[in-house]
């Protein structure tokens, strides 16, 4: 029994490690995007390998626990939850890489200016806050905080729609930078998806804490 507790502690630590890396990837890719820092963007892409390796490790550890310890009740939910959450964090890492790649492409154009800069920054900080809150909710086993994150995601989606419309309108007036606008759309789409992934994680957190499955239901 003691070995099960130890194993869960270890896999939880690995998951947090992965979560911090994913969070850092998001923050740094956004910093590179807003500051036009190509070197930082390259660093984000290079760091993604570590997240992938961690995902494999966590999956293996979870499988090991299922096969050898047959956890029940809260332990079962934790391990099951971890094996689901790690996939989402891995995707968040990949989406940050997409932002970094698009940043490198955008930086190739000297004359292009990100539009609408302030609103994208607003969207980015909402998404970043949501990820940090998600990690906090996981650490504190706080299902209320997780519900708040899911609730805040509606705002992200609304803002995303607004920005998308604004960019499409602007791209028509400024056809010289059409390619760059498409890249920016890719960035905000990635942001919106990162927000969705954070929501998925929060749903899993609620499942771990309460055993309640709230996926595909209206809150």
């Amino acid at each position, binding site marked *: 029994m003691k070995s099960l507790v130890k194993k869960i502690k270890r896999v939880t*630590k690995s998951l*947090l*490690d*992965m979560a*911090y*890396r994913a*969070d*850092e990837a998001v*923050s*740094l890719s*956004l*910093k590179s995007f*807003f*500051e036009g820092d190509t070197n930082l963007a390259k660093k984000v892409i290079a760091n993604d390998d*570590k997240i992938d390796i961690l995902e494999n490790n966590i999956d293996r550890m979870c499988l090991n626990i299922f096969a050898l310890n047959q956890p029940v009740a809260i332990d079962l939910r934790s391990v099951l939850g971890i094996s689901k959450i790690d996939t989402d964090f891995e995707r968040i890492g990949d989406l940050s890489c997409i932002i970094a790649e698009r940043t490198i492409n955008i930086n190739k154009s000297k004359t292009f*200016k990100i539009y609408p800069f302030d609103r994208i*920054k607003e969207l*980015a*900080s909402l998404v*970043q*806050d949501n990820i*940090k809150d998600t*990690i906090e909710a996981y*650490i504190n086993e706080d299902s209320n905080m997780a519900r708040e994150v899911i609730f805040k995601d509606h705002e992200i989606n609304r803002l995303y729609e607004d920005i998308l419309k604004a960019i499409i309108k602007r791209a028509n007036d400024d056809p010289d930078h059409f390619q760059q606008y498409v890249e920016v759309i890719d960035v905000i789409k990635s942001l919106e998806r990162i927000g969705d992934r954070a929501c998925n994680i929060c749903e899993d957190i609620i499942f771990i804490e309460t055993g309640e499955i709230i996926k595909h239901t209206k809150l």
Partner: protein
Amino acid sequence: MFKTFRSKVNFSYFMLFFLVFISMIISIQIFLKNALMRDLKAKMVDNIMVVKEIKDNVNNSKVLQKRLSRLSKILNIKIVLANFKGEIIFQSYKKKISPVDFLNQSEIVQSEKKAYGICIRKNGNTSKEYYIALKDKKVYIRITKGFNTVIGVTSDAVQFVYIVSGIFLAVFLIINYILANFLSFPVRDIVNFTKRFKQGDYNVRLPVYKLDELGLVKLSLNYLAKSVSNNIESISMQKMRLEAIVKSVSEGILLLDEDQKIFLNNKGFFDVLEIEETNLKGKYFYEAIKNSDIIDFVDDSMNTGLKQKAHFNITLKGTFSVKTIIVTSIPIEDQKGCILLLEDVTEEFNLQLLKREFVSNASHEFKTPLAIMKGYIETLLNGVEDKNKITDFLEKINHNIIRLDNIINDVITLNKIEDYKKLFLFTRTNLNELVDNCLHILNPAALKMGIELKKDFKEKISLKTSPELLEIVLYNLIDNAIKYNNPNGYVKIHISQKNDYVNIIIADSGVGIPELQREKVFERFFTVNKSRSREIAGTGLGLSIVKHAALILKGQITVSNNPEGKGSVFELNLPVNVE
């Protein structure tokens, strides 16, 4: 059931008394009964002897009958005389007795063998009666007396004993209660004392009235309490001192146990990581420090047991900025835990970056005019015939020397401002004079470009500031406004006082600054347009000087677009009174 010492004492005393009284009552009852029975027997024997004497001495049967009848009335007894066949000779009462029945009675049977036959029994419906029989020469003599009177005496006596013993029992119980209270009083004192001591009242002491066993216990408890409270006091003093040290340190401190759980942290920890203060005790350190590299670093340090130090970049919530912190991990001996020190070095780190940048920029800025001059001088040395060309070359060399001179002057000024060791003297200054001075110096340059200098204020404004620094600021701002202006443009200077602040606005009709580069104009060696800057011998240091000077003057400088079309507006807010 008997939780308190008192109730135990009460109960045991009560039981003791109760048992004593019960046994007393029973023995009294038995003794009384026996005594009465003996007494009754003696009386009956006397009676029967009297009957025998009368029967022996009176021969006349009529007289005998008369006498016996009287005797039975006086003594309240029944007398029966019968011969050996059971035939009744005399009977003092009316009921008929058959001879067979009479001979079979237990007292008659007993009287055959003993001197007297005694029997106590019920006769028909009547109550118990005492029979005594005697065998004489020819007759049986039997007398009978009601037994109830005897019983009545005993029960009266027993009742009396009950009442007396009841009263005594009650009195004893009251005494017992008081006694038990008195005995348990010191015990209750001790219980209260230990309860209060447990709750943390270390100053509580027991009153000692006399030195019996419990008194000695109280004394030793008092000694114990005193030494414990002294120890606790010294330990808490030590703890307070340690905590004060840990708290007052501005670096973040974390103490980890062997499971990597936090058991001590200070306020500096939250300040360094810029997170909200929460209770971290008992949490794992990797739940508080949200950075994978630091987690790996600490794991490594704890596994190897070696002190390590490294710097890390951490991302902050809400902004997209990065902080640089130095983490020192000091494992405690025998791997029983670890001390983590976190130090915020973001400013130092950025400053170092800036210094490196400054050196590379400055060397570049110095090299360019030198290279140009070198080229012209080499050409001149090779020999140039044309006098006009020589003048032209020398003019260009002169221009570059002026530029080099400007750069060196600006670097010196900038260093002077940044060097906080040089204190600037704050005095009450007339702003009008200061502006007039600057305009007077810069007027020739403005006239050269056909630029109009507009002074848009009249009232006299004076403020406490460093005139030396403020002149540098105003000179640089107006100089820039002229240099980067279009020919025949204007420079407008507007000064007004709003409450405690003096608002200085310098607007120009020049080339303006693109929106994205607006933040960068205050950086060293930054110029919006390099070729233009070179043309007018600009250094790229002017606005950097302005920014630093404004900081020392406790003012704020902002830049925006000129609302009247082209150009930019610099706005400087200065406090009227500086402490």
